[in-house]
Protein backbone atom coordinates (compact mmCIF):
# COMPACT_ATOMS: atom_id res chain seq x y z
CA UNK A 1 0.00 0.00 0.00
CA UNK A 2 1.83 3.04 -1.31
CA UNK A 3 2.18 6.19 0.75
CA UNK A 4 3.57 9.60 -0.02
CA UNK A 5 5.65 11.85 2.13
CA UNK A 6 5.32 15.10 0.21
CA UNK A 7 6.53 14.05 -3.28
CA UNK A 8 8.53 11.03 -2.08
CA UNK A 9 6.87 7.68 -2.56
CA UNK A 10 7.12 5.12 0.23
CA UNK A 11 6.21 1.46 -0.22
CA UNK A 12 3.86 1.70 2.74
CA UNK A 13 2.72 4.19 5.38
CA UNK A 14 4.13 2.54 8.53
CA UNK A 15 7.33 4.15 9.79
CA UNK A 16 9.49 3.62 12.83
CA UNK A 17 9.50 6.74 15.01
CA UNK A 18 12.62 8.70 15.90
CA UNK A 19 14.63 7.33 18.76
CA UNK A 20 12.68 4.08 18.90
CA UNK A 21 14.39 1.93 16.28
CA UNK A 22 18.02 2.18 17.26
CA UNK A 23 20.37 2.15 14.28
CA UNK A 24 18.16 -0.32 12.41
CA UNK A 25 20.60 -3.15 12.98
CA UNK A 26 19.14 -4.19 16.33
CA UNK A 27 15.59 -4.41 14.97
CA UNK A 28 16.70 -6.25 11.86
CA UNK A 29 17.12 -9.38 14.01
CA UNK A 30 13.32 -9.39 14.19
CA UNK A 31 11.91 -7.59 11.20
CA UNK A 32 13.20 -6.52 7.82
CA UNK A 33 13.74 -2.80 8.30
CA UNK A 34 14.18 -2.32 4.57
CA UNK A 35 10.47 -3.06 4.23
CA UNK A 36 9.35 -0.41 6.69
CA UNK A 37 7.70 2.58 5.02
CA UNK A 38 10.75 4.31 6.43
CA UNK A 39 12.93 4.17 9.49
CA UNK A 40 13.42 7.40 11.36
CA UNK A 41 16.76 7.70 13.11
CA UNK A 42 17.15 8.98 16.64
CA UNK A 43 17.83 12.69 16.53
CA UNK A 44 21.34 13.19 15.27
CA UNK A 45 23.40 15.98 16.80
CA UNK A 46 26.62 17.61 15.62
CA UNK A 47 28.82 16.39 18.46
CA UNK A 48 28.65 13.05 20.26
CA UNK A 49 26.32 13.15 23.26
CA UNK A 50 26.41 10.92 26.31
CA UNK A 51 22.80 11.76 27.12
CA UNK A 52 21.20 11.81 30.55
CA UNK A 53 22.06 9.84 33.66
CA UNK A 54 20.06 6.75 34.59
CA UNK A 55 17.36 5.91 35.50
CA UNK A 56 16.24 7.09 32.10
CA UNK A 57 12.88 5.37 32.00
CA UNK A 58 9.83 4.96 34.18
CA UNK A 59 6.66 3.13 33.36
CA UNK A 60 3.40 5.05 33.81
CA UNK A 61 -0.19 3.91 33.22
CA UNK A 62 -0.35 2.92 29.54
CA UNK A 63 2.74 5.01 28.97
CA UNK A 64 6.37 5.47 29.75
CA UNK A 65 8.60 8.39 30.52
CA UNK A 66 12.02 8.62 28.98
CA UNK A 67 14.90 10.98 29.42
CA UNK A 68 17.55 9.58 27.13
CA UNK A 69 18.81 13.04 26.29
CA UNK A 70 19.67 12.40 22.66
CA UNK A 71 22.55 10.05 23.36
CA UNK A 72 24.39 9.44 20.12
CA UNK A 73 27.77 9.41 18.45
CA UNK A 74 27.37 12.69 16.56
CA UNK A 75 26.74 13.32 12.89
CA UNK A 76 30.16 12.26 11.61
CA UNK A 77 29.96 8.81 13.16
CA UNK A 78 26.36 8.56 12.01
CA UNK A 79 27.37 9.27 8.42
CA UNK A 80 30.34 6.95 8.63
CA UNK A 81 28.76 3.96 10.30
CA UNK A 82 24.97 4.10 10.56
CA UNK A 83 23.50 5.71 7.48
CA UNK A 84 25.59 3.61 5.04
CA UNK A 85 24.37 0.39 6.66
CA UNK A 86 20.78 1.45 6.02
CA UNK A 87 21.48 2.88 2.58
CA UNK A 88 23.29 -0.23 1.35
CA UNK A 89 20.30 -2.34 2.22
CA UNK A 90 17.93 0.00 0.46
CA UNK A 91 16.07 1.10 3.57
CA UNK A 92 14.33 4.44 3.44
CA UNK A 93 15.82 6.59 6.15
CA UNK A 94 14.26 9.70 7.61
CA UNK A 95 17.13 11.42 9.38
CA UNK A 96 15.99 13.22 12.51
CA UNK A 97 18.16 16.12 13.58
CA UNK A 98 18.41 17.90 16.90
CA UNK A 99 20.21 21.11 17.73
CA UNK A 100 20.52 23.82 20.32
CA UNK A 101 20.46 26.74 17.90
CA UNK A 102 19.40 27.63 14.40
CA UNK A 103 23.05 27.47 13.42
CA UNK A 104 23.44 23.93 14.69
CA UNK A 105 20.39 22.68 12.82
CA UNK A 106 21.64 24.38 9.70
CA UNK A 107 25.06 22.85 10.04
CA UNK A 108 23.49 19.42 10.41
CA UNK A 109 21.39 19.95 7.31
CA UNK A 110 24.47 20.99 5.35
CA UNK A 111 26.31 17.94 6.51
CA UNK A 112 23.39 15.74 5.38
CA UNK A 113 22.78 17.58 2.12
CA UNK A 114 25.01 15.41 -0.03
CA UNK A 115 24.84 12.19 1.99
CA UNK A 116 23.36 9.33 -0.02
CA UNK A 117 20.37 7.53 1.41
CA UNK A 118 18.55 10.39 3.11
CA UNK A 119 14.88 9.94 2.26
CA UNK A 120 13.78 12.94 4.29
CA UNK A 121 15.00 15.11 7.10
CA UNK A 122 12.88 15.41 10.22
CA UNK A 123 13.55 18.36 12.46
CA UNK A 124 13.11 17.47 16.11
CA UNK A 125 11.90 20.81 17.41
CA UNK A 126 11.62 19.56 21.00
CA UNK A 127 15.17 20.67 21.75
CA UNK A 128 15.97 23.53 24.10
CA UNK A 129 17.06 26.69 22.35
CA UNK A 130 20.25 27.81 24.05
CA UNK A 131 19.72 31.32 22.72
CA UNK A 132 16.33 31.55 24.44
CA UNK A 133 17.11 30.27 27.93
CA UNK A 134 16.33 26.71 26.96
CA UNK A 135 12.79 27.29 25.67
CA UNK A 136 12.17 24.47 23.24
CA UNK A 137 11.73 25.43 19.61
CA UNK A 138 8.46 23.48 19.34
CA UNK A 139 6.84 25.91 21.77
CA UNK A 140 7.76 29.04 19.86
CA UNK A 141 6.39 29.42 16.34
CA UNK A 142 8.94 32.07 15.38
CA UNK A 143 11.98 30.08 16.42
CA UNK A 144 10.54 26.92 14.91
CA UNK A 145 9.94 28.64 11.58
CA UNK A 146 13.45 30.01 11.58
CA UNK A 147 14.93 26.55 12.06
CA UNK A 148 12.71 25.10 9.36
CA UNK A 149 13.55 27.82 6.86
CA UNK A 150 17.26 27.47 7.27
CA UNK A 151 17.20 23.67 7.17
CA UNK A 152 15.01 23.85 4.07
CA UNK A 153 17.48 26.20 2.45
CA UNK A 154 20.43 23.98 3.28
CA UNK A 155 18.92 20.66 2.15
CA UNK A 156 18.73 19.37 -1.39
CA UNK A 157 15.45 20.49 -2.96
CA UNK A 158 14.29 16.93 -3.58
CA UNK A 159 14.62 15.83 0.05
CA UNK A 160 11.48 16.68 2.02
CA UNK A 161 11.93 18.57 5.26
CA UNK A 162 9.55 17.46 8.01
CA UNK A 163 8.97 19.56 11.13
CA UNK A 164 8.15 17.53 14.25
CA UNK A 165 5.83 19.19 16.72
CA UNK A 166 5.06 18.69 20.39
CA UNK A 167 1.55 18.61 21.86
CA UNK A 168 2.26 20.64 24.97
CA UNK A 169 1.66 24.01 23.45
CA UNK A 170 -1.38 26.25 23.70
CA UNK A 171 -2.09 26.14 19.98
CA UNK A 172 -0.53 23.42 17.89
CA UNK A 173 -2.13 24.80 14.73
CA UNK A 174 -0.28 28.09 15.13
CA UNK A 175 3.06 26.28 15.42
CA UNK A 176 2.17 24.03 12.49
CA UNK A 177 1.31 27.03 10.36
CA UNK A 178 4.54 28.78 11.27
CA UNK A 179 6.54 25.70 10.24
CA UNK A 180 4.69 25.38 6.94
CA UNK A 181 5.19 29.06 6.27
CA UNK A 182 8.84 28.51 7.07
CA UNK A 183 9.01 25.91 4.29
CA UNK A 184 8.23 22.57 5.90
CA UNK A 185 7.15 20.02 3.30
CA UNK A 186 5.40 17.90 5.90
CA UNK A 187 4.75 17.83 9.63
CA UNK A 188 5.24 15.02 12.13
CA UNK A 189 3.29 14.87 15.34
CA UNK A 190 3.40 14.26 18.17
CA UNK A 191 6.63 14.28 20.05
CA UNK A 192 6.41 13.41 23.71
CA UNK A 193 4.76 15.87 26.10
CA UNK A 194 6.81 16.50 29.22
CA UNK A 195 5.77 14.44 32.20
CA UNK A 196 7.11 13.28 35.51
CA UNK A 197 6.84 10.44 37.92
CA UNK A 198 7.93 10.31 41.54
CA UNK A 199 9.16 7.19 43.26
CA UNK A 200 7.15 7.32 46.47
CA UNK A 201 9.55 4.96 48.23
CA UNK A 202 12.69 6.91 47.44
CA UNK A 203 10.61 10.12 47.58
CA UNK A 204 12.53 11.35 44.56
CA UNK A 205 11.75 11.77 40.88
CA UNK A 206 11.78 8.36 39.20
CA UNK A 207 14.01 9.69 36.41
CA UNK A 208 17.45 11.02 37.17
CA UNK A 209 16.65 13.93 34.89
CA UNK A 210 13.48 14.73 36.83
CA UNK A 211 11.14 15.23 33.93
CA UNK A 212 10.93 13.13 30.79
CA UNK A 213 8.94 12.64 27.62
CA UNK A 214 5.67 10.73 27.92
CA UNK A 215 4.98 8.21 25.16
CA UNK A 216 2.74 5.23 24.53
CA UNK A 217 -1.04 4.68 24.28
CA UNK A 218 -1.67 7.12 27.14
CA UNK A 219 -0.93 10.00 24.76
CA UNK A 220 -2.79 8.67 21.73
CA UNK A 221 -5.82 10.92 22.37
CA UNK A 222 -3.47 13.93 22.30
CA UNK A 223 -1.92 12.72 19.05
CA UNK A 224 -5.27 12.15 17.37
CA UNK A 225 -6.41 15.59 18.48
CA UNK A 226 -3.27 17.32 17.16
CA UNK A 227 -3.45 15.53 13.82
CA UNK A 228 -7.15 16.32 13.61
CA UNK A 229 -6.71 20.02 14.38
CA UNK A 230 -3.77 20.50 12.04
CA UNK A 231 -5.39 18.58 9.20
CA UNK A 232 -8.55 20.65 9.61
CA UNK A 233 -6.57 23.89 9.41
CA UNK A 234 -3.99 22.83 6.80
CA UNK A 235 -5.63 20.07 4.77
CA UNK A 236 -2.99 20.11 2.06
CA UNK A 237 -0.03 19.48 4.33
CA UNK A 238 1.19 15.87 4.62
CA UNK A 239 1.16 14.69 8.23
CA UNK A 240 3.05 11.85 9.84
CA UNK A 241 0.94 10.81 12.81
CA UNK A 242 2.39 9.12 15.86
CA UNK A 243 1.79 8.67 19.55
CA UNK A 244 0.72 5.43 21.15
CA UNK A 245 0.12 3.40 18.02
CA UNK A 246 0.01 -0.29 18.95
CA UNK A 247 -2.23 -1.78 16.25
CA UNK A 248 -3.72 -1.29 12.82
CA UNK A 249 -6.80 0.18 14.47
CA UNK A 250 -4.71 2.81 16.20
CA UNK A 251 -2.95 3.61 12.93
CA UNK A 252 -6.29 3.91 11.19
CA UNK A 253 -7.46 6.31 13.88
CA UNK A 254 -4.61 8.66 12.96
CA UNK A 255 -5.20 8.18 9.23
CA UNK A 256 -8.89 9.02 9.57
CA UNK A 257 -7.87 12.10 11.58
CA UNK A 258 -5.62 13.23 8.72
CA UNK A 259 -2.27 11.45 8.78
CA UNK A 260 -0.90 10.11 5.48
CA UNK A 261 1.77 8.09 7.25
CA UNK A 262 1.96 6.69 10.76
CA UNK A 263 5.02 6.14 12.91
CA UNK A 264 5.40 3.53 15.62
CA UNK A 265 7.56 4.30 18.63
CA UNK A 266 7.20 2.83 22.11
CA UNK A 267 5.35 -0.23 20.82
CA UNK A 268 8.60 -1.38 19.18
CA UNK A 269 10.06 -1.84 22.65
CA UNK A 270 7.35 -4.32 23.45
CA UNK A 271 6.96 -5.88 20.04
CA UNK A 272 9.95 -5.64 17.72
CA UNK A 273 7.79 -7.05 14.92
CA UNK A 274 5.29 -4.22 15.32
CA UNK A 275 5.85 -2.38 12.01
CA UNK A 276 5.01 -5.24 9.64
CA UNK A 277 2.21 -6.41 11.92
CA UNK A 278 0.59 -2.98 12.11
CA UNK A 279 0.91 -2.58 8.35
CA UNK A 280 -0.84 -5.90 7.81
CA UNK A 281 -3.61 -4.98 10.22
CA UNK A 282 -4.06 -1.55 8.66
CA UNK A 283 -4.25 -3.02 5.17
CA UNK A 284 -6.90 -5.46 6.31
CA UNK A 285 -8.98 -2.78 7.98
CA UNK A 286 -8.81 -0.54 4.92
CA UNK A 287 -9.72 -3.47 2.72
CA UNK A 288 -12.72 -4.39 4.91
CA UNK A 289 -13.91 -0.80 4.60
CA UNK A 290 -13.59 -0.90 0.83
CA UNK A 291 -10.60 1.38 0.39
CA UNK A 292 -8.23 0.64 -2.48
CA UNK A 293 -5.90 3.48 -1.74
CA UNK A 294 -4.69 4.84 1.56
CA UNK A 295 -5.28 8.38 0.33
CA UNK A 296 -9.04 7.80 0.25
CA UNK A 297 -9.08 7.24 4.01
CA UNK A 298 -6.82 10.12 4.98
CA UNK A 299 -8.82 12.65 6.99
CA UNK A 300 -12.08 10.88 6.28
CA UNK A 301 -13.42 11.38 9.80
CA UNK A 302 -13.64 15.09 8.96
CA UNK A 303 -16.51 14.61 6.53
CA UNK A 304 -19.54 16.50 7.75
CA UNK A 305 -21.81 14.56 10.09
CA UNK A 306 -25.40 14.90 11.06
CA UNK A 307 -25.30 14.63 14.81
CA UNK A 308 -21.84 15.85 15.37
CA UNK A 309 -20.67 19.34 15.91
CA UNK A 310 -16.96 19.37 15.91
CA UNK A 311 -15.64 22.43 17.67
CA UNK A 312 -13.29 22.04 20.56
CA UNK A 313 -15.28 21.29 23.66
CA UNK A 314 -14.87 23.54 26.68
CA UNK A 315 -15.18 20.51 28.96
Amino acid sequence: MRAYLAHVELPNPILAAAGCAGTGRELSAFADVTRFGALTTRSITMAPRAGRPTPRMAETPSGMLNAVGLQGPGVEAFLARELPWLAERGARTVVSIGGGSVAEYTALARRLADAPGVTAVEINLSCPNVDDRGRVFARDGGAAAEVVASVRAAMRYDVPVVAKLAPDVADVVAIARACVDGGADALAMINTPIGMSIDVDAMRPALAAGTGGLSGPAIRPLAVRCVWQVHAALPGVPLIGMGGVTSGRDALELVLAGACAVAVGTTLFHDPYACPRILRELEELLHERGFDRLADAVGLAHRPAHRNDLEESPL
Partner: protein
Amino acid sequence: MAGTPVQVTGTVLTTRRVDAYHALTVVAPGIADRFRPGHFVTVAVGGPQTSMLTRRAFAVHDVKSDYGGTVEFVFAVRGPGTAWLADRKARDALDMVGPLGRPFPLPRDPATCLLVGGEYGSAPLFALADALHQRNCRVDFVLGAASSDRVFGALRARRIGETTTLTTQDGSLGMRGSVVDVLPAVIADTRADVVYACGPMPMLRGVTAVCVEFDIPVQVSVEEAMACGIGICMTCVVPVIGDDGATRMVRVCTEGPVFRGERVRFDDVGTIPFDALGAPGGDRGR
Protein backbone atom coordinates in the same frame (compact mmCIF):
# COMPACT_ATOMS: atom_id res chain seq x y z
CA MET B 1 26.30 -14.79 21.19
CA ALA B 2 24.40 -17.75 19.90
CA GLY B 3 22.29 -16.55 17.05
CA THR B 4 19.49 -14.05 16.98
CA PRO B 5 16.75 -13.65 19.55
CA VAL B 6 13.14 -14.57 18.83
CA GLN B 7 9.75 -13.72 20.22
CA VAL B 8 7.65 -16.71 21.21
CA THR B 9 4.33 -17.16 22.90
CA GLY B 10 5.30 -19.92 25.24
CA THR B 11 3.20 -22.01 27.59
CA VAL B 12 3.85 -22.15 31.31
CA LEU B 13 4.83 -25.73 32.15
CA THR B 14 5.37 -25.47 35.88
CA THR B 15 5.37 -22.85 38.57
CA ARG B 16 7.08 -23.24 41.90
CA ARG B 17 8.00 -21.24 44.95
CA VAL B 18 11.58 -21.38 46.11
CA ASP B 19 11.82 -19.64 49.46
CA ALA B 20 11.33 -15.95 48.75
CA TYR B 21 11.28 -16.49 45.00
CA HIS B 22 9.01 -17.74 42.26
CA ALA B 23 10.20 -19.88 39.38
CA LEU B 24 8.42 -20.30 36.08
CA THR B 25 9.29 -22.93 33.51
CA VAL B 26 8.01 -22.06 30.08
CA VAL B 27 7.93 -24.10 26.90
CA ALA B 28 9.79 -21.86 24.48
CA PRO B 29 11.76 -23.97 22.00
CA GLY B 30 13.30 -21.19 19.92
CA ILE B 31 14.72 -19.56 23.00
CA ALA B 32 15.99 -22.71 24.69
CA ASP B 33 17.85 -23.72 21.51
CA ARG B 34 19.83 -20.56 21.36
CA PHE B 35 20.58 -20.18 25.05
CA ARG B 36 24.01 -19.71 26.54
CA PRO B 37 24.64 -19.07 30.24
CA GLY B 38 24.21 -15.40 31.12
CA HIS B 39 21.50 -14.75 28.59
CA PHE B 40 18.29 -13.12 29.71
CA VAL B 41 14.72 -13.03 28.45
CA THR B 42 12.07 -10.34 28.51
CA VAL B 43 8.48 -11.15 29.32
CA ALA B 44 5.29 -9.26 28.50
CA VAL B 45 3.21 -8.82 31.65
CA GLY B 46 -0.39 -7.95 32.45
CA GLY B 47 -2.31 -9.66 29.66
CA PRO B 48 -4.58 -8.00 27.09
CA GLN B 49 -5.52 -4.36 27.74
CA THR B 50 -2.90 -4.03 30.44
CA SER B 51 -1.59 -0.61 31.38
CA MET B 52 1.93 -2.06 31.75
CA LEU B 53 3.75 -1.39 28.50
CA THR B 54 7.25 -2.57 29.05
CA ARG B 55 8.56 -6.09 29.14
CA ARG B 56 10.27 -7.33 32.29
CA ALA B 57 13.81 -8.74 32.07
CA PHE B 58 14.89 -11.94 33.82
CA ALA B 59 18.08 -13.91 33.73
CA VAL B 60 17.57 -17.41 32.38
CA HIS B 61 18.06 -19.88 35.22
CA ASP B 62 17.93 -23.05 33.23
CA VAL B 63 16.96 -24.50 29.88
CA LYS B 64 15.96 -28.10 29.24
CA SER B 65 15.30 -30.02 26.08
CA ASP B 66 11.94 -31.51 27.11
CA TYR B 67 8.86 -30.43 25.18
CA GLY B 68 11.14 -29.16 22.44
CA GLY B 69 12.87 -26.80 24.83
CA THR B 70 11.94 -25.09 28.10
CA VAL B 71 13.25 -21.95 29.77
CA GLU B 72 13.14 -21.38 33.51
CA PHE B 73 13.59 -18.08 35.30
CA VAL B 74 13.47 -17.12 38.93
CA PHE B 75 12.11 -13.88 40.26
CA ALA B 76 11.23 -11.87 43.30
CA VAL B 77 7.94 -9.98 43.44
CA ARG B 78 8.84 -6.33 43.36
CA GLY B 79 6.06 -4.40 41.68
CA PRO B 80 2.89 -5.03 39.68
CA GLY B 81 4.60 -6.82 36.79
CA THR B 82 6.27 -9.46 38.91
CA ALA B 83 3.11 -9.72 41.02
CA TRP B 84 1.22 -10.61 37.83
CA LEU B 85 3.86 -13.18 36.93
CA ALA B 86 3.60 -14.74 40.37
CA ASP B 87 -0.09 -15.40 39.62
CA ARG B 88 0.60 -17.41 36.45
CA LYS B 89 -0.46 -21.00 36.41
CA ALA B 90 0.50 -24.04 34.36
CA ARG B 91 -0.86 -23.85 30.80
CA ASP B 92 -1.08 -20.03 30.78
CA ALA B 93 0.49 -18.40 27.76
CA LEU B 94 3.54 -16.19 28.23
CA ASP B 95 5.03 -13.88 25.62
CA MET B 96 8.82 -14.01 25.80
CA VAL B 97 11.69 -12.55 23.80
CA GLY B 98 15.13 -14.07 24.00
CA PRO B 99 17.77 -15.10 24.42
CA LEU B 100 19.15 -11.61 24.88
CA GLY B 101 22.42 -10.01 25.83
CA ARG B 102 26.03 -10.99 25.96
CA PRO B 103 26.44 -14.30 27.80
CA PHE B 104 29.26 -15.16 30.18
CA PRO B 105 32.47 -15.75 28.24
CA LEU B 106 33.96 -19.15 29.04
CA PRO B 107 37.66 -19.78 29.63
CA ARG B 108 39.35 -21.58 26.76
CA ASP B 109 41.37 -23.84 29.03
CA PRO B 110 40.35 -25.51 32.29
CA ALA B 111 40.46 -23.03 35.13
CA THR B 112 39.24 -22.61 38.67
CA CYS B 113 36.13 -20.47 38.56
CA LEU B 114 34.50 -18.79 41.49
CA LEU B 115 30.82 -18.03 40.98
CA VAL B 116 29.43 -15.29 43.20
CA GLY B 117 25.69 -14.65 43.44
CA GLY B 118 23.64 -12.20 45.45
CA GLU B 119 19.90 -12.66 46.00
CA TYR B 120 18.22 -13.87 42.77
CA GLY B 121 21.51 -13.10 41.03
CA SER B 122 22.52 -16.69 41.78
CA ALA B 123 19.92 -17.93 39.30
CA PRO B 124 22.02 -17.74 36.12
CA LEU B 125 25.13 -19.19 37.76
CA PHE B 126 24.07 -22.84 37.66
CA ALA B 127 23.84 -23.10 33.90
CA LEU B 128 27.20 -21.37 33.86
CA ALA B 129 28.59 -23.95 36.29
CA ASP B 130 27.41 -26.74 34.02
CA ALA B 131 29.10 -25.17 31.02
CA LEU B 132 32.28 -24.67 33.00
CA HIS B 133 32.24 -28.26 34.18
CA GLN B 134 31.94 -29.38 30.59
CA ARG B 135 35.16 -27.53 29.95
CA ASN B 136 36.73 -29.28 32.89
CA CYS B 137 36.81 -26.21 35.04
CA ARG B 138 36.62 -26.34 38.80
CA VAL B 139 33.64 -24.43 40.14
CA ASP B 140 33.22 -22.91 43.60
CA PHE B 141 30.30 -20.86 44.86
CA VAL B 142 29.78 -17.91 47.11
CA LEU B 143 26.09 -17.11 47.52
CA GLY B 144 24.63 -14.47 49.76
CA ALA B 145 21.54 -12.47 50.53
CA ALA B 146 19.86 -10.47 53.25
CA SER B 147 18.39 -13.54 54.91
CA SER B 148 18.34 -17.31 54.44
CA ASP B 149 15.06 -17.37 52.49
CA ARG B 150 16.60 -15.03 49.93
CA VAL B 151 19.72 -17.11 49.25
CA PHE B 152 18.86 -18.81 46.01
CA GLY B 153 20.24 -22.23 45.06
CA ALA B 154 22.29 -23.08 48.15
CA LEU B 155 21.50 -26.79 47.91
CA ARG B 156 22.32 -27.07 44.27
CA ALA B 157 25.52 -25.13 44.77
CA ARG B 158 26.55 -27.53 47.52
CA ARG B 159 25.83 -30.42 45.21
CA ILE B 160 27.73 -29.24 42.18
CA GLY B 161 30.31 -26.83 43.58
CA GLU B 162 33.74 -27.87 44.80
CA THR B 163 33.12 -25.59 47.77
CA THR B 164 30.18 -23.43 48.63
CA THR B 165 30.27 -20.48 50.98
CA LEU B 166 27.02 -18.89 52.07
CA THR B 167 26.50 -15.49 53.65
CA THR B 168 23.50 -13.64 55.03
CA GLN B 169 23.27 -10.15 56.41
CA ASP B 170 21.24 -11.37 59.37
CA GLY B 171 23.35 -14.44 60.00
CA SER B 172 20.39 -16.78 59.47
CA LEU B 173 22.43 -18.93 57.07
CA GLY B 174 26.18 -19.33 56.63
CA MET B 175 28.45 -16.47 57.64
CA ARG B 176 27.01 -13.20 58.80
CA GLY B 177 27.86 -10.45 56.35
CA SER B 178 28.06 -10.07 52.60
CA VAL B 179 29.63 -12.13 49.85
CA VAL B 180 32.22 -9.40 49.52
CA ASP B 181 33.33 -9.88 53.12
CA VAL B 182 34.20 -13.53 52.59
CA LEU B 183 35.52 -13.17 49.07
CA PRO B 184 39.24 -12.59 49.80
CA ALA B 185 39.43 -15.72 51.95
CA VAL B 186 37.56 -17.81 49.40
CA ILE B 187 39.71 -16.59 46.53
CA ALA B 188 42.79 -17.44 48.54
CA ASP B 189 41.47 -20.88 49.54
CA THR B 190 40.23 -21.88 46.11
CA ARG B 191 43.04 -20.21 44.18
CA ALA B 192 40.41 -18.96 41.79
CA ASP B 193 41.63 -18.04 38.32
CA VAL B 194 38.52 -16.11 37.43
CA VAL B 195 35.41 -14.79 39.13
CA TYR B 196 31.88 -14.59 37.74
CA ALA B 197 29.39 -12.46 39.65
CA CYS B 198 25.73 -11.61 39.39
CA GLY B 199 23.75 -9.60 41.90
CA PRO B 200 22.98 -6.07 43.04
CA MET B 201 25.21 -3.26 41.80
CA PRO B 202 26.92 -2.56 45.17
CA MET B 203 27.81 -6.24 45.44
CA LEU B 204 29.30 -6.23 41.94
CA ARG B 205 31.32 -3.18 42.80
CA GLY B 206 32.65 -4.88 45.94
CA VAL B 207 33.42 -8.13 44.13
CA THR B 208 35.21 -6.26 41.39
CA ALA B 209 37.32 -4.31 43.90
CA VAL B 210 38.44 -7.54 45.54
CA CYS B 211 39.26 -9.15 42.20
CA VAL B 212 41.26 -6.13 41.11
CA GLU B 213 43.18 -6.41 44.34
CA PHE B 214 43.87 -10.08 43.68
CA ASP B 215 44.55 -9.28 40.06
CA ILE B 216 42.19 -11.89 38.69
CA PRO B 217 39.68 -11.36 35.91
CA VAL B 218 36.06 -10.84 36.91
CA GLN B 219 32.94 -11.00 34.76
CA VAL B 220 29.92 -9.24 36.23
CA SER B 221 26.30 -9.40 35.12
CA VAL B 222 24.75 -5.97 35.60
CA GLU B 223 21.11 -4.91 36.07
CA GLU B 224 19.77 -1.55 34.93
CA ALA B 225 16.13 -0.49 34.29
CA MET B 226 15.25 -1.49 30.74
CA ALA B 227 12.44 -0.44 28.44
CA CYS B 228 13.21 -2.70 25.46
CA GLY B 229 15.94 -5.23 26.21
CA ILE B 230 16.96 -5.34 22.55
CA GLY B 231 19.14 -2.27 22.15
CA ILE B 232 16.78 0.26 20.60
CA CYS B 233 15.66 2.54 23.44
CA MET B 234 18.94 3.63 25.04
CA THR B 235 17.53 3.66 28.54
CA CYS B 236 19.73 0.96 30.09
CA VAL B 237 23.17 2.52 29.87
CA VAL B 238 26.08 2.37 32.32
CA PRO B 239 29.48 4.04 32.02
CA VAL B 240 31.98 1.48 30.74
CA ILE B 241 35.61 1.93 29.80
CA GLY B 242 36.37 0.67 26.32
CA ASP B 243 39.48 -0.99 24.89
CA ASP B 244 40.67 2.48 23.88
CA GLY B 245 40.46 3.69 27.47
CA ALA B 246 37.54 6.00 26.74
CA THR B 247 34.37 5.84 28.83
CA ARG B 248 31.14 5.39 26.94
CA MET B 249 27.54 5.08 28.08
CA VAL B 250 26.87 1.57 26.83
CA ARG B 251 23.70 -0.47 26.77
CA VAL B 252 23.44 -3.18 29.37
CA CYS B 253 20.94 -5.10 27.25
CA THR B 254 23.14 -5.59 24.21
CA GLU B 255 26.75 -4.77 25.10
CA GLY B 256 26.01 -6.45 28.47
CA PRO B 257 24.58 -7.56 30.80
CA VAL B 258 27.94 -9.29 31.29
CA PHE B 259 30.95 -6.99 31.39
CA ARG B 260 34.49 -7.27 32.59
CA GLY B 261 34.14 -5.93 36.09
CA GLU B 262 37.04 -3.51 36.02
CA ARG B 263 35.63 -1.85 32.93
CA VAL B 264 32.39 -0.83 34.66
CA ARG B 265 32.63 2.51 36.45
CA PHE B 266 30.48 1.42 39.37
CA ASP B 267 31.00 4.63 41.32
CA ASP B 268 29.64 6.61 38.43
CA VAL B 269 26.57 4.50 37.66
CA GLY B 270 23.61 6.85 37.64
CA THR B 271 25.72 9.76 36.44
CA ILE B 272 27.33 10.83 33.23
CA PRO B 273 31.03 10.92 34.17
CA PHE B 274 32.54 14.20 33.07
CA ASP B 275 35.09 12.36 30.95
CA ALA B 276 32.57 10.12 29.18
CA LEU B 277 32.39 10.44 25.42
CA GLY B 278 29.90 13.20 24.68
CA ALA B 279 29.48 14.25 28.31
CA PRO B 280 27.96 17.68 28.80
CA GLY B 281 30.62 20.32 29.11
CA GLY B 282 33.20 18.00 27.58
CA ASP B 283 32.21 19.24 24.19
CA ARG B 284 29.10 21.30 24.44
CA GLY B 285 26.79 21.46 27.39
CA ARG B 286 23.29 20.94 26.17
